[in-house]
């Protein structure tokens, strides 16, 4: 269950090493990973003859970057990396170092940081046991996710990131003193250090560092992201999906205040599916547990209210995630690109569905042209909004604004001419080959959800002293909202 070592590496493409180990204890020139010697001692016994020691940072970094294909050089075919039989289907790697193979190394790249750890395997490594049987794998993932959340939650600039990076070693000493992780929520560990002097009463949950003192209030916010793939083709069905996140912040006095939040749907609202809840939720109705997008929908589908009884942690947390299949996409569009000798003729039509709130915070359509040169000439006509041209980036941005017109339907047509392509400046895309092209919608609507889902303030039950102020917010955001050129092949997604 324990980790033998943890690394945090910043990925720096186009530098000599392509990366730097970022753990630091605040001394100049001090770097390295976190190593756990007592765990290493056990690894030596458990792994027996198959034991491979944790390498120093230099060789580890090189091997990891190579394995993750993050070294800049991929000009030539290298068998140890490019052979068709070297298939990796998980974020768990075997790193060849000094003639031996270090396995399993849990590693992933996110926002320019590489997170890596080596879980202890409590048996021999040869033959390799299946990953599912190694408890340290999920523990390692949780630790790395915890570090990632801590570094990037609420972080706005590089200074904040460096401050958080400098706090990290002390936090890990708190949250993972002997390599066995006690709490993946590092923010909670930070609070724990600060609350340490407070005498805690009995039965304090480990995931709650202290108690809140002050005015009671509960804030619930529902954010729905809608994604869509629209093809305007006979043989390919368009797809769209809503993913909701319910975030709560409960400022309530007492050690274990109980709260129940109910999510409701209007009549004819789209049922919530695939509900995943925060571990603080104490019980879950089986109807919620079994409602899943895997099954074909029928009228008998459970449509709420969705009750979530829980004891809140101190910090803001994601109470639950859900998906939903709404009957129509909020904006239906079609996009046609025709190649005409030296230019492209494009036509775009967008139609807002009448049921959708016509009051955007913003709404834009981005029309990129990949694998071509810069835009040299453009003629166009828009029925609504304005068009901005980013010539060097070969990108058109159609700014639609806050509202669709009364007809709910807008269009754009025009011709685009491109110059000679220079590989450095114009974007490359492995999908948009030949006629394959898309436009991507970006929009946000406040105080609205596509499913209609809302948290009824009156149905929020709080079992704690004082009557809390309850506030609820909703918003709909587009995410991966693609409309593909209907005159060319397009990649299909399922589900």
């Amino acid at each position, binding site marked *: 269950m324990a980790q033998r070592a943890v690394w945090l590496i910043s990925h720096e493409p186009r530098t000599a090493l392509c990366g730097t180990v970022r753990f630091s204890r605040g001394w100049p020139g001090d770097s390295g990973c976190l190593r756990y010697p007592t765990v290493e001692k056990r690894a030596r016994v458990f792994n027996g003859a198959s034991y491979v020691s944790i390498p120093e940072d230099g060789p580890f970094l090189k091997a990891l970057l190579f394995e993750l294909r993050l070294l800049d050089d991929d000009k030539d075919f290298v068998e140890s990396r490019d052979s068709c039989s070297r298939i990796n289907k998980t974020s768990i790697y075997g790193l060849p170092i000094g003639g031996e193979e270090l396995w399993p190394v849990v590693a992933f790249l996110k926002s320019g940081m590489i997170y890596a750890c080596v879980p202890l395997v*409590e048996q021999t490594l040869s033959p390799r046991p299946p990953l599912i049987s190694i408890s340290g794998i999920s523990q390692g993932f949780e630790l790395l996710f915890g570090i990632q959340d801590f570094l990037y939650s609420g972080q706005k600039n590089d200074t904040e990131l460096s401050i958080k990076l400098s706090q990290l070693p002390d936090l890990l000493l708190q949250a993972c003193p002997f390599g066995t992780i006690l709490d993946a929520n590092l923010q909670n560990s930070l609070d724990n250090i600060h609350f340490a002097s407070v005498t805690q009463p009995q039965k304090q949950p480990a995931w709650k560092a202290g108690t809140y003192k002050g005015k009671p209030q509960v804030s619930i916010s529902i954010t729905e992201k809608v994604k869509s793939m629209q093809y305007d083709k006979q043989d390919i069905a368009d797809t769209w999906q809503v993913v909701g996140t319910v975030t709560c912040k409960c400022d309530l006095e007492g050690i274990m205040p109980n709260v129940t939040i109910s999510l409701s749907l209007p009549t004819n609202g789209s049922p919530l599916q695939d509900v995943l809840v925060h571990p603080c939720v104490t019980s879950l109705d089986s109807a919620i547990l079994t409602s899943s997008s895997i099954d074909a929908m029928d009228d008998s589908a459970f449509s709420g209210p969705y009750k979530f009884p829980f004891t809140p942690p101190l910090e803001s947390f994601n109470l639950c995630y859900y998906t939903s299949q709404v009957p129509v996409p909020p904006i239906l569009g079609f996009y046609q690109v025709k190649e005409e000798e030296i230019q492209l003729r494009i036509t775009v039509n967008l139609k807002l569905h009448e049921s959708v709130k016509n009051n955007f915070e913003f709404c834009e359509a981005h029309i990129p042209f990949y694998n071509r040169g810069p835009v040299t000439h453009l003629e166009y006509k828009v029925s609504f909004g304005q068009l901005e041209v980013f010539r060097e980036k070969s990108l058109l941005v159609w700014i639609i604004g806050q509202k669709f017109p009364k007809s709910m339907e807008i269009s754009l047509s025009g011709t685009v001419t491109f110059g000679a392509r220079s590989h450095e400046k114009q974007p490359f895309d492995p999908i948009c080959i030949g006629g394959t092209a898309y436009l991507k919608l970006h929009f946000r609507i406040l105080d609205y959800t596509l499913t209609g889902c809302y948290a009824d303030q009156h149905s929020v039950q709080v079992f704690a002293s004082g009557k809390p102020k309850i506030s609820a917010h909703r918003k709909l955001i587009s995410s991966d909202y693609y409309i593909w050129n209907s005159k060319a092949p397009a990649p299909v997604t399922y589900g």
Partner: protein
Amino acid sequence: MGPLSREAWAQRLAAFRASPSAFMADPEGEDLGRDLLSDLRNEKLSEQTKVSLLVLSLEYPVQLWPDAPAAEVAATSLLDTLVLLPPRLSALRRLLLLAATTALVAGGALGPTSGASCRLLPLLLGLASGSDLGPGFGPTSEQRSLQATACECLRELESCKPGLLGGALGLLRGLLGQAGPVQPFSLLLALALRNTLLVQSRAGAGLRGLLMAGISPTRGGPWDWTLVEEGDAHLQPQAPSWPAAEEGEHGLEAQEPSPEEARELRAAVAQLLDTTYLLTPVAQAQLLWLLGWALRGLQGQPPALFKPQLVRLLGTAQLTLLHAVLALKAAFGEALFTAQDEALLLRRLTLAAQHPALPLPTHLFYLHCLLSFPENWPLGPEGEEAAPLLLRPQLCHGLLPSLLHDPMALLARLHLLCLLCAEDEEEEEKGLVQSPRGSLEELMAGLQQRAALEGGPRALATLCFQASYLVARCLAGQPTVLTPLIHGLAQLYRARPMLAPHFVDLLDQVGPELGEPLRALLRQEVVSRPGRDEALRWHLQMLAKVADGSAQSATLSFLQAAAAHCTAWDLQQALLRVCRALLQVGGGDGLADLLQALARQLEDPDGRDHARLYYILLAHLAGPKLGVALAPSLTAPALASSLVAENQGFAAALMVQEAPAPIRLSVGSREIKGPLPVLQLQVEALESIYSLELRFRVEGQIYAPLDPVHMPCLCPGRPAHPLLLPLQPRRPAPARLDVHALYTVPTGLTCHAHLPPLSVNFSDLFLPFPHPPEGTGPGFFEELWHSCLPEGAESRVWCPLGPQGLEPLVSHHLEPFVMVAQPPTIYCVAIRLPPNSRLLLRLEAAQGDGASVALRTDDWAVLPLAGDYLRGLSAAV
């Protein structure tokens, strides 16, 4: 060295961390551990610096205190420092506890004979139980944090020495019920309980007694080490490995606790499970793994205890929790999960593997879990990835791969798709809107199109070939899938020949189902080119891989056309590699012409030499031998350079190999024929050999040189004709023949072996005189007898005889040479000894048990040999 300042320490620690091994190799490095310990008590150093020192000791105890005595000293010093701390709030207390624990464990000093261990353990237990240890252990506000830390230290010690806390089970159980942090006690109790279950049967301690005992930690006297297994050999996994892999290996099965014990244990487990909700998700998962394994196979412990937790756990998005549920599933199977539960778990897993709110690494891990799902009734072979039976294609709709996925997600989902395609051949017929096979075909076409993209990154090509490999491996028996794949790949090659190395790699990895037709298509693809393509180097690399005996004329005309454009050395080498590949499969007339042309035409002398060598090989070696000559050597280790490897192959094939004797030779019975003595050799083959040539050398040159003997083939167990070896003695004397064998083995290698020498005896040289006409024998013998003297020599020998007398001796050994016989008493024997000597014997049986032999020869040198011979005969009697 005196106390260091903050800055000096900063520099020193930075130097150490930059390279611990280099720092410790320095003479100054030795003092680091000692200086660190002494400076922890230096009042001039700030607490922050001391924290840095302790943190270093947590990470590198083995480097600082490499052996058990040093670790013991260090731990003692750390504990002393702890006691001496002033009673105010300090960040050092917690770290000192962690450091002392780490030093003892990492240095291997933990044990009943270690003074530091015997101080640390009661101290930790005292801190954990919240006893008042005096003002030296900080203000009460720090107690709670130290309580948790002490629990962590105890847990680590118990992990490394299972059974250490066996005696404290009752105390821990009591503490969990009272005040105190829940999580540290829960985890500590669960681990101690699990380890105690493991070792108690051996130690003979009653579980119930342990669970009920409520010892006082500080006044409890010496620590109880009875349950600790000596040595690391008994270290047990904290988490179960998958049960299928190790059923019966561990001692938990078939234990039968008494009903009271079972009740007490159940109560303790229930107590732990009841408060899991208060633990952080990662700690909950640890607890479930531990308890799951502790109770597996234990009688009287129904896994239903876990049931109330499951619904809550199944609903969370937390990776560790769902993983722990899967571990429980693997541990208890049907006892905890009914068929419906199993279906629900599988659906949650399927859902989690694609839930848009979860990150990619989580999706990938869940996909792995799906394919390794611990089914109640698995059908397939264990340890192999397979789609669970309950996972129907409809459920997997959202898990199908698409070009938009990340490469790893694409491959993982493609694997699942392949498994579905393999299972659902029959369902294909039903005409689903998008059959799995249809999706597969579409995806592969898209991948090929992307890989064909000019200037695209290599990763796209690699992904396409990885996907092709995966499909070929999972669906090798399905031509309906493979045929479009193969055509797509051929098309990809047409579009982007620079992917040749990927094709070569793919052909190396896949089986014949995909490999053979793909080879043929690619060959066709290459040879239909005009041969002056800019991608010529790739075509040649490809052709060297795919060229075989078929369609050789097209291949040769392509090569002929290409030769004109092969001006650079590497191109010429690539061209010659193709020729070599053709040679290996037998060559042909056209090839000989081409090689001759190349030997003249190529600009580079190395190229010309190679072409000539190939031509000579083609002209002189038969097909199979040629193949062997050019095949990579099996004995030589693989070398990086192809040139060296190539040379090694040649060398092995063209040089004569030394080998142990493949045959056994012996001299057979004599047969007298012709004018010369002939040695009849019996040959026995020990292995199959061909073209055997036996070479003989006579030691001392007393015979004329012997011609070699040839045999076309020899097989073990098949009788061979005797070999006749005519001897031409220059002197009538026995000799030793040195024998060498040169032959070919079935693999085509030519071998040489030195056989044991053969002895030619004196009697092997005997030849008879021509028989005189009937009746003139005695007269002729007398003439010979008299003609020997005066140049010759005469002697007389006494020959002892057996009871049968003289007759058997003569008939056995001298029969062909008897000229006059008066059985059974008198025999006259005349022997011709080539080149031109004679030996005459007159044997007369005397009274009693012997015979007198008179002998004459015209060559005095023969006399001692004859004497020896006769004595040998009589000795044989």
